[in-house]
């Protein structure tokens, strides 16, 4: 797996800003990078949530105004948010359920841009944290390129040309990446890709670290980190 500069990354991590699971995982992944020699290659995977959980739209007061979800799909969605909210709160983060299924592809394109234009890893981390945190507080319109343009600038990432990129080469790059990832077998976020092996979910972080360290000793059990790694 390579980024736009054809640099080989050891560990690729697929995320989607609209995923609560990616939201509660991203800080842990940054911790992994800080504590190891790995440079994470962040890849946007824009999920079509309606294709596996149905679609729904709510008013501010939580009233459902449009939905094709079955009771079973609702129970899975509600359980997922209940669980993610619990882990987010444990990290001191606010997770408010979105009122619609967002098209997060522009934020994904902004992630590609940020990764290619950030002068430091800290800038990239700040950008991701800012977009994640504000989106989950219902304070960031990730479908608005102007909002993303400003978000890049706010953390010191050069943003000149971003809008054109997002509507041209960036869009093409994003769309191509979706095809590649799906073909490779990535279907959800966060997913970790290491030497063609895929790990889906932050519960595999220990196993990913185990693999990165040469698979010595028994393979760890899955676990959702509750305290800082």
């Amino acid at each position: 797996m390579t980024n736009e500069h054809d640099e080989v990354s050891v560990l690729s991590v697929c995320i989607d800003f609209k995923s609560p699971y990616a939201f509660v995982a991203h800080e842990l992944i940054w911790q992994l990078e800080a504590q190891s020699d790995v440079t994470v290659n962040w890849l946007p995977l824009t999920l079509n949530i309606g294709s596996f959980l149905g679609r729904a739209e709510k008013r501010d007061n939580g009233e459902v105004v449009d939905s094709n979800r079955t009771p079973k799909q609702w129970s899975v969605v509600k359980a997922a948010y209940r669980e993610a909210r619990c882990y987010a709160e444990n990290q001191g983060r606010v997770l408010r359920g979105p009122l619609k299924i967002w098209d997060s592809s522009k934020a994904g394109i902004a992630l590609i841009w940020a990764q290619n234009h950030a002068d430091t890893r800290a800038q990239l981390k700040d950008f991701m944290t800012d977009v994640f945190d504000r989106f989950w507080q219902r304070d960031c319109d990730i479908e608005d390129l102007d909002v993303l343009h400003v978000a890049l600038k706010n953390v010191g990432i050069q943003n000149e040309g971003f809008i054109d990129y997002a509507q041209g080469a960036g869009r093409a790059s994003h769309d191509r990446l979706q095809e590649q990832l799906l073909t490779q077998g990535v279907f959800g976020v966060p997913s970790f890709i290491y030497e063609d092996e895929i790990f889906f979910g932050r519960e595999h972080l220990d196993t990913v670290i185990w693999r990165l360290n040469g698979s010595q000793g028994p393979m760890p059990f899955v676990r959702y980190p509750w305290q800082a790694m």
Partner: protein
Amino acid sequence: MADYGFDALSVHVLVNLHDPESVVGIKAVAEWAADQDQIVRVWPFLREPINTAAEVPKGTPDFEAYKARRGLARRRYKDQERQRNLQRLSLNHLWSFTAAGAVLAHWGLLRLAEHGVSATIVSPFILGMVASNKVLDSVCVQAALTAVMPALASEIRGFDQSVAKAELAERSLWLSDQGVLSAPSMLYQGEVFSGMAHLPRLTALCRP
């Protein structure tokens, strides 16, 4: 939660022995229980896995193509994860049950839990059973059950497969109504934890 023996003080692990993820879960929770000095009981939960994608109304050809490709990727991933789980169990083969063996094994789990047998005892029993044979029929399951709890021999003599099957289905349905979506899951103080990956959080909750 008093019904069906799910007392509030114990951690209850709900498993389906057909799936290596559940067996890995038993192994993990047994090690955890020993460390935590926490009562953990293992119960059967036999429901078809939820496939939410199958309930999505048909869409455009592109939408359907995406669904199909994503579904394929998901199935391929599950195979990969099954292999990793076998590695976690130090096994190089996937076991299967005969129909009678499966009912007896899950019925046996139920009886062991009702008798208050802890996960630390259930774990070596299950691991030994799945490691010993590729096909687990009622004869080998019965031998394993009576080895772990000789007193079960008399109950096994009265074992009726269709009655046991109905009992397992009824209990699993009841658990579904409590919000259990899949196996392995855990129940603690009425809260459902989907997947054994929640053990670190459970540690924090159980700590006095």
